């Protein structure tokens, strides 16, 4: 068996991120029954609460308290991990904007393999770990193998490894703050700039008509607006629409945009990347309209329409108006 398994716990305002449980679940899929160590770093109030929360899911929790770790700067945390981890450690991180910042460089410094955005674990045969990843925005999956004999950094996709049963491990918190070591960085955190508030709050809407790349042109946004008006809904969108500056950022559904909880979500020309679906909570009734029958959105939608939205949406709008 390769090295000891560690999970880095991200946290905010004294609460561990959902990925804390998910990483414990993922570790169990690699090494059933393995003793996994959680790593919690930070400074000041709330840190102990996070450690105690982590101890529900991990046998051991290593606590590193240091002012230089007050904000989770990936460069400082990388230095810390290189200072304190055994060189053949298997490190699990969430594949969020923190894990993307930390994972690749950490693997270089530990001289171990890096496996990004894992959605499934197939088997561990000797030192060869076989995982499932996705490529092309989720349109195809791959089996990928890696040799973890010299350690590994494994980023897992958030929201995938839900725990069947979690908690009750009753782990032990070990204060290792004395071992932090040198943490000088070339990148210094300044501040968080909060998202701008737009003219509508899509997080409070029951029915969303959401547009993606399939809308093709700024002038076609009107098609979605007309449909939304007929339905009594509000228009939201996926990332490419905001990148193209066709709608405001406040209308974007996704991990880098808003998290919405509608009752009904009508996705027009949205392929359904995990970053987009990550912003969709509360188990809405999802209708997908997409001309590509293989679009990943059809895997998660309740109802699908394989048509070009530019042709279908106007027909739907007209029929709704007639039916009223």
């Amino acid at each position: 068996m390769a090295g000891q398994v560690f999970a880095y716990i991200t946290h905010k305002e004294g609460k561990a991120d959902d990925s804390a449980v998910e990483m414990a679940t993922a570790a169990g899929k690699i090494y059933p029954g393995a003793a996994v160590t959680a790593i919690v770093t930070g400074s000041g109030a709330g840190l102990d609460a996070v450690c105690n929360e982590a101890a529900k899911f991990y046998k051991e929790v290593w606590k590193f308290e240091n002012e230089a770790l007050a904000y989770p700067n990936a460069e400082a945390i990388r230095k810390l991990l290189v200072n304190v981890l055994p060189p053949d450690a298997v490190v699990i991180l969430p594949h969020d904007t923190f894990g993307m910042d930390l994972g690749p460089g950490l693997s270089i410094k530990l001289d171990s393999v890096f496996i990004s955005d894992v959605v499934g674990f197939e088997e561990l045969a000797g030192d060869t770990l076989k995982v499932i990843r996705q490529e092309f925005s989720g349109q195809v999956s791959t089996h990928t193998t890696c040799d973890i004999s010299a350690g590994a950094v494994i980023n897992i996709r958030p929201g995938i490894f839900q725990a069947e049963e979690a908690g009750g491990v009753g782990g032990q918190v070990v204060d290792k703050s004395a071992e932090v070591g040198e943490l000088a960085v070339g990148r210094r955190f300044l501040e968080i700039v909060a998202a701008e508030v737009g003219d509508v709050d899509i997080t409070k809407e029951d029915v969303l008509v959401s547009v993606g790349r399939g809308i093709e042109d700024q002038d076609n946004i009107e098609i979605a607006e007309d449909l939304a008006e007929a339905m009594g809904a509000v228009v939201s969108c996926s990332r490419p629409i905001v990148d193209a500056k066709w709608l405001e950022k406040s209308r974007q559904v996704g991990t880098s945009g808003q998290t919405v909880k509608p009752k009904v979500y009508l996705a027009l020309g949205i392929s359904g990347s995990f970053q987009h679906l990550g912003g969709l909570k509360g188990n809405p009734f999802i209708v997908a309209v997409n001309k590509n029958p293989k679009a990943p959105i059809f895997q998660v939608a309740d109802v699908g329409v394989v048509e070009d939205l530019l042709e279908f949406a106007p027909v739907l709008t007209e029929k709704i108006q007639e039916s009223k």
Partner: protein
Amino acid sequence: MEILVCVKRVPDTAENEIEVAADGSDIERDDLVYSVNEWDNYAVEEAIQIVDKAGGSVTVVSVGDEDAEEVVRREMAMGANNGLLLSDDAFEGSDGKGIATLLKAAVEKGNYDLILTGAQADDGAGQVGGMLAAMLDVPYASVVNTIEVLDDKKLKVGREIEGGNQEMNEIDLPCVLSIQTGINEPRYVGIRGIRKVASVEIPVWGAPDLGLAADTVGAAGARVKRVDYFMPELGEGAEILEGSMEEVADKLIELLKAKGGIK
């Protein structure tokens, strides 16, 4: 400011339906439309805009075969000053670390203040920029969506983090940044722009030029290997509504009404 932008030629997912080849060894590559990775295109635009303000030059580098040269040339038509192609049979089958190793060798033959990559490409790994920075021992910031040049020693960069928030950082040069889409509006490249750079010589460097042992890159050096491709499991999947467009619309209206989707 001397800027290097790392770009990749990829199948354009906006133009193609990606399908798995019959034997699962690859995706179906016949008739695919290729283009520059979308994230990389934003990175090149950002580099050009920085140089427009602060002076210097933009070099675009790609790892690949002669087809990748087209992509380098396209980015030069956008306004990048120099192109560079890293190409050798020995590079084929490189994993992310192999690509980063090649780029590191190329970086060390130049004198760059700033290195940009796209935040991710077709394989969705988002790994090369962070690896390259660690190999070069310079600071790194991922998913960058604003860059402000403070002086010739440091930048102020915004990272796009969860919830639409932005994390502001000060970062020392030289550094590596991975660029998020939406950071700017990449300029249109017309046929005239392409013609202007059509005959520009683009240097090609192989393993000997980079001083690399063949077993550190390519399939020989790869510790992460893709075994096969397969179609994702559909789970339950959507109930696909069948019929004419009018019939489908009628069915959908009933369903939407039942679920409270039409007020």
